[in-house]
């Protein structure tokens, strides 16, 4: 358990860490000497990879994994045999290519990519950090920054643990372990996770190289900028002022808000790249469709309902999957419970109920909201529909209870 946590920290560091200047593109199939710093970082990444394989949130769907690997290989070209791809069911917009060729693709990124071209561009961006060996430069930069923090080393190590585990909850009991007897266990790159970020120049370089890689792989180069525009728009849709003001905090570029100039640079480079109009929208949607419902449920756990609603609007723009999408729209409004949200939730459940792909729970929720509103007849109709469609549901007795209490009330 401990080992895997350390490994995860190393992975986060690896993400944060990667490139050198454009001159030093790495060759395929090489492994650094184990006595070098790079060798050490690879060793950490190896451990991170071993730990990642055993995590609870690894997505084991063979079809999805094959699809993601396929797109990764298109942008990675001759490096493909060096890469091992893992899909993780984690709701944040994130992907990383660790220095040892271990690739994490988070479901939050897949849910937010409109099409295969946008997805390929983000993978191309991350892969460029890897190909340009950005890790070492970032590591050394962090090392010089760390001088400032000598006295605060203990505190930083703890931050590192929290940051690296993606822990929004300071990781419950485990953090006690980290904070007490085992501080020295946070050897490795723990501190780094708090400091370690790619530089603005490295990000700019990865932007342009990623776009180029996606274009060479046959994708529409204009989708690169579109990907970042969507991220920025979703950030603006947050329920929280601090998130809106931080612009791109949901992205991997946390420390470097997406500037308009980065989007402008992508727009500027696009016409110079091979022309294509292939965005792969339909095949992309087909690949993620079996997971839409579970991933939206995961996204609701973030409890930034403004962002989830914005995301659902984008997913619904093409008129597909409206049963599932309207159901989760209803869930977001119901959970948020702001002024007028229950009314919006009711309307969304109703819209879902008209679609063939609706989760059956939509009728139960519709019944509950109508009951709250004093619409006994409407509530009864919704509950009865639920029971008719899901007579074997484990909570059928609960819905039956609600029906009975309606009868008593009327």
């Amino acid at each position, binding site marked *: *358990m401990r080992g895997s946590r350390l490994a995860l920290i190393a992975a986060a560091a690896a993400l944060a860490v990667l490139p050198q200047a454009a001159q030093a593109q790495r060759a395929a199939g090489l492994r650094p000497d184990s006595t070098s*710093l790079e*060798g*050490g970082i690879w060793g950490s990444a190896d451990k991170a990879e071993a730990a990642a394989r055993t995590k609870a949130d690894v997505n084991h769907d063979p079809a999805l994994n094959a699809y993601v690997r396929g797109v990764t290989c298109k942008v990675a070209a001759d490096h493909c045999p060096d890469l091992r791809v893992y899909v993780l069911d984690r709701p944040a917009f994130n992907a990383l290519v660790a220095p040892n060729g271990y690739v994490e693709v988070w479901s939050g990124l897949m849910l937010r990519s409109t099409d295969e071209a946008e997805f390929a561009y983000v993978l191309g961006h991350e892969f460029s950090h890897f190909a340009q060996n950005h890790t070492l430069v970032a590591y050394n930069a962090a*090392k010089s920054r*760390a001088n400032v923090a000598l006295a605060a080393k203990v505190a930083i190590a703890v931050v590192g643990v929290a940051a690296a585990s993606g822990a929004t909850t300071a990781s419950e009991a485990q953090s006690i*372990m980290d904070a007490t007897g085992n501080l*020295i266990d946070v*050897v*490795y790159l723990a501190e780094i996770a708090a400091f370690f970020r790619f530089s603005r120049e490295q990000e700019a370089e990865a932007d342009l190289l990623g776009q180029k890689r996606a274009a060479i792989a046959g994708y529409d180069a204009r989708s690169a900028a579109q990907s970042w525009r969507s991220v920025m728009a979703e950030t603006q849709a947050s329920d929280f002022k601090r998130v809106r003001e931080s612009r791109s905090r949901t992205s991997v570029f946390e420390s470097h808000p997406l500037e308009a100039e980065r989007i402008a640079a992508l727009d500027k480079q696009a016409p110079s790249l091979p022309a294509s109009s292939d965005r792969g929208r339909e095949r992309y949607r087909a690949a993620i469709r079996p997971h839409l419902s579970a991933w939206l449920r995961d996204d609701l756990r973030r409890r930034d309902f403004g962002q989830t609603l914005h995301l659902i609007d984008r997913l619904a723009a093409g008129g597909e999957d409206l049963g599932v999408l309207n159901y989760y729209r209803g869930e977001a409004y119901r959970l948020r419970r702001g002024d007028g949200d229950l009314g919006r939730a009711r309307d969304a459940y109703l819209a879902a109920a008209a679609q063939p792909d609706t989760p059956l729970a939509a009728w139960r929720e519709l019944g509950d909201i109508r009951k709250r509103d004093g619409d006994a007849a409407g509530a009864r109709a919704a509950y009865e529909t639920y029971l008719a469609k899901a007579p074997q549901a484990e909570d059928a007795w609960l819905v039956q209870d609600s029906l009975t209490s309606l009868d008593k009330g009327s």
Partner: protein
Amino acid sequence: MKRLIATLVACMLISACTTTHTQVMANPVKPAAGARILVVDPDIQLGLLTASGMTEPKADWTEQARANIAAQLESEMKARAHAYRLLDPDDAMGGRSGQLMRLHGAVSASIQGYGYALPTKKGAFDWTLGEGAQALGAAQSADYALFVRGVGSYASGGRVATAVGMAMLGVSVPLGSQQCFVTLVDLKTGRVVWANFTIAGPNADMRETAGASALVKALLKDAPL
């Protein structure tokens, strides 16, 4: 001035001799001669503690220490007439064995983190993996499992210089340390028979054969093996 520095360094080194802390269940049953001991591949992670306070991972040290510790464990087991087998934990993370491996992680973290703090654990070393341990034993053809984990860092020359400078200002700078935690689990009963936590001193440098030997001897000092 030079002498002062030398004294300071000596003080810092003296404070770091090998110490062990053993916990053992009441009336542990010693494995019989020939018992099959599964040694879970020691999870060792070593780094260089730099002047700035960051720890650089060192793959060569890690590999060297892992090999040294594994070799010393093997010779210690053979000296005790036990059958020895090394398990790479990455190969055992699936199925029920994998659950037992993870449960062991939770149990050993609990021993370290809560062994003394919980009123419900006062006066009794009664940690267990439960009946499922038999499944691990059957899958691995073993009677006991020995889990070893070590982490550590070694100060760089620059780090030592910084430490000396800061010591004169009255600030203590950690010079790196190495520690090992080991548990012995009876796979028939699931009971954690014995656990030991060792902080290694500078003469127990696990990167060297002699250091690894001293460390493993200290680790297994009171083991009911």
